[in-house]
């Protein structure tokens, strides 16, 4: 089904046209878990007919997403695929650049990136040169704003090997760091050294540091033990993820999560949503952006009405871009929590 028709349908269903983005995780619910295939070329046709363009007018969020993470592979497969991805990484980066340039061509003139977000594993996967290449083309195509009010967020799933990595991301123009627990994809997430990690990042004078933490059986004890010392470092925002709390036998985790939220609030953090807490006056919510566009293999894009997913197979992703088509392949409806 062409995307434009999907938009009209979603609007008839009462979709909300504006939301706020929090750390690349728009509060969302799906009216259906099932993805529908996008008709080939429908995406581009809708851009041409301006039915999508209105989401981008006045500014949009752009998210560069790591390969594999978002392609529905298991943690085990993810680890296995990393080396093969690395071998072909430069080709992948060149195609990311292609997608960025194609996106720019398809957007209404003057579309501004108001919020930039890089997924967590990119710092680990990409060489400094590759990171520079992607940022260079993003900056050039979208005339990124590098002023103090810019919101360029980079996730870190693991502590960088050296301070040079932090120097680079700071130098590339990222001004907000989001430390992200990648959950099952990480062999271990160092809750114990999180405070030290926060201090190292702070030394590079980033505007803000956010934490996205997963409360799981593997992390709950360490989190409980170290939460106060982490809060002492005053990260500007904390997102407590509880995605897997529905499964059986998680009563203890639910209690722990409740306790963590109470302790976070006691430390003067303000609840923004049920899972997200922020220091007062940090102004971390990016307002006036109703669309997040994801770039990369399997990348997700969000509008207030639906979610799109890019091709999840490399060959398919490359083929779409070789044909000068944006690589969105699947769609499903969304409803915001706000």
């Amino acid at each position, binding site marked *: 089904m062409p995307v434009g028709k999907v938009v009209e349908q979603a609007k008839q269903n009462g979709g909300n046209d504006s939301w706020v983005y929090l750390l690349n995780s728009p509060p969302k619910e799906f009216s259906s878990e099932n993805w529908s295939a996008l008709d080939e070329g429908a995406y581009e046709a809708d851009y041409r007919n301006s039915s999508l363009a209105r989401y981008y007018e006045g500014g949009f969020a752009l998210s560069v997403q790591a390969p594999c993470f978002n392609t529905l592979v298991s943690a085990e497969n993810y680890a296995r695929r990393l080396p093969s991805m690395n071998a072909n990484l430069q080709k992948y980066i060149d195609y990311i650049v292609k997608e960025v340039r194609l996106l720019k061509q398809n957007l209404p003139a003057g579309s501004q990136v108001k919020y930039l977000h890089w997924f967590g594993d990119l710092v680990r996967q990409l060489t400094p*040169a590759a990171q520079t290449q992607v*940022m260079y083309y993003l900056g050039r195509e979208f005339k990124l704003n590098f002023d103090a009010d810019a919101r360029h967020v980079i996730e870190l799933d693991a502590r960088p090997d050296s301070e040079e990595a932090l120097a680079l991301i700071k130098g590339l123009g990222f001004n907000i760091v989001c430390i992200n627990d990648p959950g099952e994809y990480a062999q271990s997430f160092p809750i114990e050294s999180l405070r030290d990690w926060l201090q190292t990042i702070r030394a590079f004078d980033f505007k803000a540091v956010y934490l996205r933490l997963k409360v799981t059986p593997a992390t709950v004890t360490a989190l409980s033990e170290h939460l106060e010392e982490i809060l002492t470092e005053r990260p500007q925002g904390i997102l407590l993820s509880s995605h897997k709390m529905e499964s059986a036998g998680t009563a203890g985790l639910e209690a722990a999560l409740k306790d963590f939220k109470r302790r976070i609030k006691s430390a003067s953090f303000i609840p923004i949503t049920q899972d997200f807490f922020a220091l007062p006056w940090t102004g971390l919510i990016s307002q006036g952006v109703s669309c997040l566009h994801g770039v990369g293999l399997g990348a997700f894009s969000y509008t207030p009405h639906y979610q799109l997913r890019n091709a999840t197979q490399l060959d398919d992703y490359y083929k779409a871009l070789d044909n000068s088509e944006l690589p969105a392949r699947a769609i499903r409806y969304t409803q915001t929590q706000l």
Partner: protein
Amino acid sequence: MESKHIATSSPFSLHRGCHECNLSKLCIPIAVGAEDIDRLEEIIRQGKMLNRGEYIFEQHTPFRSCFAVRSGAIKTFTVSEEGEEQVTGFYLPGEIIGLDSVSMEKYSCSAVALERTSVCEIPLEKFEDLASDIPSLQHHFFSLMSKEIQESRQLTMLLSKNSAEERIASLLLSLSTRFSRRRLSGTNFRLPMPRSDIGNYLGLAVETVSRVITRFQNNGIIKVQGREVQILQLEELQKILRHDTKCLDHQKESALNAR
């Protein structure tokens, strides 16, 4: 290979192409096969000579080209709205200037020759066209750019955190490393810049620069005569830097050389 002690103004044939240039292993052509160097030479304007004090480009003028330093030395600086000059970098042969402006429409700083200098001009638009045909060239270009970004950010860290001794030690070690890269002596070299520029660059008063250099001399770490510097105790210089000092480049290369 034995290191030689030579000044920054080494004799180059000005119109020698990338094929014959001694610096090609540091510069853009490193990524290019012999068959593509001719194409590269077609877009690069080689061996433009500049006298001391002459500008290569000026801040806020439209960005068009990067420049590879072929001989001599260049300083880059910005001028604030209040008219204050801030030195942002020193560039030696084999290094590229202007990389910090490639994603902008205008040069973010000015560049001026510190001594008689020759540069090769790399017009970015033509270079991009060529690089799209030669992926290795493009990737090398971004490697150089990422290195420039890292070093510039580390300098910011250095200036915001470290003591005068650490800052000067870091600069001397940085110069030592960069001369070594060119297979020149890393312990005997001539400072291409005056002490006032060193002070400005490191955020120190000229008197402080002189005082620290004298202290280093008195401790037998270096020997200085005019602008000629001899590093007598490289390890002591490294020790002056704290463990987390930002002259990582030097530490890494030292480790590699030690292997």
